[in-house]
């Protein structure tokens, strides 16, 4: 079995994760974790839709921010995809998408304040980078023959409109719709840094122990995501996009003096601001590096590796839930519901809830990341097994699982897993804002202490780390000859 490179790679990653478990901080520190969990479940079962009048507003704002942010991101991403073949453009896009929405929000909050622009840009900027990459990949895969046949004097715009757009239209539309769903999740968690979306109300209900209110919000959010195919119609889309900017709320006015101060003073490293010269700067950099960046990187990498393997194990356990090769329709329907819930809950919200219940440690983060990502990969793999035709006398039960199905889907399983590696790391870094000692923790504390220069350096380091893991993931996928379509 170890002759297969895919199996060897899997065991190397498993060993790294097990070693990581030895040094990771995994614990349940609250006094009554199960009682709290029970109360949360009771809250979801008995949702209270009428206590806060803000609930519907929050839902409306969540949808509005998602629409405006994703629309702006897709327009800019489309423009960037047309010039994506130029290396500086590719690097720029890789950079803006390696910084998480919440980090962008934290940056914009410092100078735009609670203006709607903060939330819109926080979604639009990283999404533009992702759209540019995926759109350009879609264009590259289109049929080159029709454009070769055009008369020589044809201008590039009509050539593009007649040969590329029609050929790619369905894929562009499917991917954009899919990103809109991701945009809903991004929009919801922006509430955790104070924007008026679902996360904000979820956090305040939780902190007051109003579990039924929190449950109502979660239930509404699931309904919102699950019914998207019904209310997001191509014909209605222009109306939504045009109307959405009017439902963002007023927020607070932008104080332009703050914008100027942020760029000319706040983010300039302290030693330069105070004229301490290069010696001061290198001391300052050394301090940031040893006391914040290194521990942050270490914890981020350890947590990412554990979460990656946990995600893999969970996906392999979860895919039979929706596979038609096992069990009956009742079990498959409940399997579908379970996986829909797992993948439509943003990992940030899962981590937040688990952290409230179990207390601060890496455990809630690992479980949250594994549940969300395992739900996504389990769903994709399960759907893939449904296209497999087994011979009539194929074994059943565990033998069918381990001899017939897993070997057939293992390569695409690994492809999805390595594709999500970078996404898991980006999320791991951001979960630091909740109090786990990953890079996000150090960014957040630097911002709390009004040391934006440090925060910017740490965000840059996080971005570089993500770009590095993305490159490594692509290298491994190429080495193992794994191919996949993008998932968010």
């Amino acid at each position, binding site marked *: 079995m170890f002759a297969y490179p895919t199996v060897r790679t899997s065991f190397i990653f498993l060993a790294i994760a097990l070693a990581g478990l030895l040094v990771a901080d995994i614990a349940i520190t609250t006094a009554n974790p199960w009682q709290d969990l029970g109360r949360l479940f009771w809250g979801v079962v008995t949702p209270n839709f009428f206590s806060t009048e803000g609930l519907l507003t929050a839902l409306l704002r969540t949808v509005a921010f998602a629409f405006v942010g994703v629309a702006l991101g897709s327009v800019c991403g489309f423009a960037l995809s047309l010039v994506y073949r130029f290396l500086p453009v590719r690097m720029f896009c890789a950079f803006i998408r390696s910084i998480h929405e919440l980090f962008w929000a934290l940056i914009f909050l410092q100078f735009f304040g609670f203006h709607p622009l903060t939330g819109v840009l926080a979604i639009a900027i990283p999404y533009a980078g992702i759209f540019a990459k995926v759109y350009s990949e879609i264009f590259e895969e289109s049929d080159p023959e029709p454009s070769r046949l055009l008369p020589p004097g044809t201008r590039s715009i009509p050539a593009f409109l007649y040969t590329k757009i*029609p050929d790619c239209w369905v894929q562009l539309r499917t991917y954009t719709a899919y990103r809109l769903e991701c945009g809903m999740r991004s929009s919801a968690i922006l509430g955790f840094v104070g924007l008026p979306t679902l996360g904000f109300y979820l956090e305040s209900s939780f902190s007051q122990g109003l579990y039924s209110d929190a449950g109502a919000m979660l239930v509404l959010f699931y309904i919102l995501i699950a019914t998207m195919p019904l209310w997001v119609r191509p014909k209605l889309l222009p109306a939504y996009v045009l109307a959405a900017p009017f439902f963002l709320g007023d927020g607070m006015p932008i104080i332009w003096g703050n914008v100027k101060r942020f760029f000319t003073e706040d983010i300039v490293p302290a030693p330069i601001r105070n004229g301490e010269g290069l010696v001061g700067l290198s001391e300052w950099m050394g301090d940031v590096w040893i006391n914040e960046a290194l521990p942050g990187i270490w914890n981020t990498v350890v947590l990412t590796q554990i979460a990656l393997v946990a995600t893999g194990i969970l996906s392999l356990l979860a895919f039979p839930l929706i596979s038609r090769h096992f069990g009956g329709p009742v079990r498959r329907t409940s399997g579908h519901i379970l996986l829909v819930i797992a993948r439509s809950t943003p990992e940030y919200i899962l981590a937040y809830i688990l952290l409230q219940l179990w207390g601060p440690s890496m455990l809630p983060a690992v479980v949250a990341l594994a549940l969300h990502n395992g739900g996504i990969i389990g769903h994709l793999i399960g759907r893939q097994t449904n296209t497999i035709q087994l011979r009539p006398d194929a074994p059943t039960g565990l033998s069918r699982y381990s001899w017939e199905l897993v070997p057939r889907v293992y390569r695409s399983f690994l492809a999805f897993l390595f594709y999500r590696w970078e996404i898991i790391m980006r999320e791991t870094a951001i979960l630091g804002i909740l109090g786990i000692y990953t890079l996000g923790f150090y960014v957040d504390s630097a911002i709390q202490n009004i040391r934006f220069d440090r925060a910017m350096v740490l965000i840059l380091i996080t971005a570089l780390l993500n770009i590095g893991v993305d490159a490594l993931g692509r290298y491994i996928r190429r080495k193992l000859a794994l191919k996949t379509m993008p998932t968010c």
Partner: protein
Amino acid sequence: MSEFDFHGLTASFEGQRVIGPLSFHVNEGEHIALVGKSGAGKSTLIKVIYERLQQEASLIPQGLGLVNALPVFHNVFIGQLDQHPTWYNTLTLLRPFSKDKKAVKALLDELSISEKLWIPAAALSGGQRQRVAIARALYRQAPILLADEPISALDGPMAHTALTLLTGRFNTSIVALHDVEMALAYCDRIIGIQDGQIALDEPAANLVASDIASIY
């Protein structure tokens, strides 16, 4: 303008030479049939000539090169994109002008598929797709036609109609054909290709079908 001298044409695939070096002269007004076994290098030769002419020819490749998601009308109209300003082409994509509709429909009438004008190319059968590609080549009105097996999916009468149209509307043409009878009937010069070289080059009037059989 429509007289050509091809000198030392070659093409290689994965380091292996598949055609040439071969040279020949094309006179204005000639209709040339390329014949030969499959794999002899006819398609590659057509491609190489197309590149030499810098796209100044109407091309019907074997793959046809239709935009599957677009209706038949736009797949034909695409042949004249260079004749109109960008705004005109963009508007046509959304709502075609009636004079273009009339012109395209008249052309499709001659090929008996005008009833498919608004059907996406993806929904057509093989023979219908081939007729759309022929219509596109005719609509482009280039001085020369380069076609690679343009009638392979057409039935008898339709194949005759199509070849009559193609050789009638283009002043000069180079067409790869596996049907020797058709080649002799519609072209005035036959070039036989064997292992990437010219094995035969004669006026059609001097040949009968059995003369060509030797290179198959």
